[in-house]
Every structure is written in structure tokens, then in C-alpha cells.
């Protein structure tokens, strides 16, 4: 039986649901969009002869370059806290007081100010290294002695690490306080 097909009439496709779905997809992707930022990382290898249950360290005649960090004026208001960076026994650099500003211009001003201070740290590390004829076996040491060293912000330690890398020393150890001894009742960490 032949079908009667009407000719001359246009078939109207209802596009509304498809456009709805498209918009939903666009909104979803826009909300999950993350533009590639300037995110970077330091890739480090922890020393295997250190740590909570390490083998005894081997003493060498080489003197490592140590940088100590302290958090000062912690008894005062938070806006007065600052980090003191000491390279060896000679160079001391005090970072700006207070927490990092969050707004763009102030944050940039703080970064520029800290860049200048950390350039001094880098120079001091370079000078200490040159005293040892730039021996490649010389390592860096970032020390945060308790109690005030433990309160130093993570960002300041990363900047000191950056200063070591800028000076050409990429082997850097961290030295500070071990984690607290804990048990389920308030002591005894299983791994210790």
C-alpha cells in the first residue's frame, strides 16, 4: 500500500530541550573551569638516613650551610608577628610584620619587599658556599628550632628553600621538632 506523504510542509524540529541541555553543560563546565595558573612545585627527596627512626648519621668534615628561622614577637598581636631568618652566624634578615595581605596590590607590594630581603639571604648563602669553594657536596639546612621556629609560616620556609635553589644548592635538609608522642588515650604514636 503506498503511503501518502505530504509535500510542501516543513518539519519543525523542537530545539528547546537541546538548547537547554547545551546551556546546562556550558554552566557545568564554566563552574568547573580552572585556568592553568602559575602553579609550580619543588620536587624533593627526603634523606633516608634521617627521620624519626633513622640510622646514625655519618659525620663528614664538610660544614653544611644552615639557615635558621624564628617567629618573633608572638606574645604580641598577630599583626606584629614576624619571621627572623639567620644565615649562619653572620646575616640576619627580618621579614615584614603581620600576615600576608590578601588584596592584589598590597600582596604584590609585600612580595616585592620580600624579594629584596630574600635576595640578601641568597647572597649570604652564596657567600657561605664560596667559602667552601662551591663544593657540590655541601648541603643546605633549614632549621626551625622549637619553640618559636615551629610557628614560622610554611610560606617563609618555602622562600628560604627557593633562596637555596637560587644560590645553586639543591640538597637541603629540614631540621626541627619531631611530631608529638601520642597514644589513643593521649600518647604513643604507632610508628615510634
Amino acid at each position, binding site marked *: 500500500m503506498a503511503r501518502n506523504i505530504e509535500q510542501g510542509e516543513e518539519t519543525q524540529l523542537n530545539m528547546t530541550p537541546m*538548547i537547554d541541555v547545551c546551556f546546562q553543560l556550558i554552566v557545568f563546565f564554566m563552574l568547573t573551569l580552572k585556568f592553568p595558573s602559575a602553579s609550580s612545585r619543588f620536587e624533593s627527596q*627526603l634523606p633516608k638516613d634521617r627521620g624519626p627512626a633513622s640510622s646514625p648519621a655519618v659525620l663528614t668534615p664538610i660544614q653544611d650551610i644552615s639557615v635558621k628561622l624564628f617567629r618573633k614577637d608572638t606574645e604580641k598581636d598577630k599583626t606584629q608577628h614576624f619571621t627572623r631568618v639567620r644565615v649562619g652566624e653572620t646575616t640576619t634578615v627580618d621579614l615584614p610584620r603581620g600576615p600576608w595581605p590578601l588584596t592584589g596590590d598590597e600582596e604584590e607590594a609585600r612580595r616585592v619587599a620580600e624579594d629584596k630581603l630574600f635576595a640578601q639571604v641568597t647572597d649570604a648563602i652564596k657567600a657561605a658556599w664560596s667559602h667552601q669553594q662551591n663544593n657540590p657536596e655541601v648541603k643546605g639546612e633549614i632549621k626551625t628550632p622549637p619553640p618559636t*621556629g615551629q610557628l614560622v609560616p610554611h610560606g617563609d620556609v618555602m622562600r628560604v*628553600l627557593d633562596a637555596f635553589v637560587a644560590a645553586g644548592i639543591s640538597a637541603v635538609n629540614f631540621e626541627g621538632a619531631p611530631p608529638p608522642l601520642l597514644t589513643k588515650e593521649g600518647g604513643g604514636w604507632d610508628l615510634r
Partner: protein
Amino acid sequence: MAVKVATGEDTILNMTPMIDICFNLVIFFMLTLDLSSKEYEQLTLAFADHAVEDKDDPADPIASRKLIVNVLPDGNIVLKGNKWNLSSQDPKEQYAALKALQSEMALVTADDGLAGVKLREPDMASKIPMQIHGDRAANWRYVQWIIATASHPKIAMYKVFFSVKKPIVEDAPGS
């Protein structure tokens, strides 16, 4: 003078260009979608000029098992979406945080999963890296505790990455 307005005629809107644009947008967003960043918390990272680009090889099975430890400014840590209070004054709560950290490290370094891929070096050091994604305002001591946990011989997670950001420096005019 009166303007004649035609009535009774349907105005047909040509939807084709808009649908084209929609499809293009969908394709763009699909291609730029980065699901790997979902484990990272939104934190203010420290500035560092000499760090390397934070990029893993997606085909590398070891890099894909990387443990991401977020350290928030208040001392809380976030592991796989779960928050633990490392800075708590309550020793039990602090214990729970360290225990969770330790368990997660033991889990990712366990030599069980990947067929044909050795997850440990001959000296039993784990090949799985850990990335410490810490806020610049977080106390260093919490990062130290995390490092100490990772470096314990029973876990032996010696490869540690620190998230930082490179400052965006605008070129001076004429340079």
C-alpha cells in the same frame, strides 16, 4: 504617520548560529576540563621563583597514585576530601589526624595494585610521591609532622613535592 505592523505572521528566529556557538563552547570547556585538580584545596600558596612546573605525566601509573596532603592555614589537613584537625589541642583528635595520615600513606604505598609496576625501590623506598599542598600561612610544624610521618622507614615515602606558585612578573615597557 501611523506605522503598519504586520500581525498574524510568525517571526522565525534562526537558531543555527547560537547552537553552533553553544557547541563550540561545550567542546572548549570539555577540552580544558582538568579533573586532576579536584583533590587540591583552594589555598594561597607561597611564592617561589625557582620551582618547576607542577605537571605529572598522565600516563605514568606511579604519578597517578600521588598522595596529596592539603595543609590549611589553621592547621587542618585534608586527605582525599576528609578533613582532620592536626592543630587540635585535644590529644585524641590530634592522634586521629596523625593516624589517618599514616593509614593513607600506608595505603598508597602498599605494593598491591599495579600489575607489572614495582612501587618500591630495591632499598624498599616507595616510588609514590607525596605532594604537600600547603597554605603559606600554615604553621611549618604541621608540614614537618607530615614529612616525619612519610620518612618513617615503615612508610619510606621519600619523594616529596611542595606546591608553590611562581610570581607573574609583567615585563617592563621597552624591555
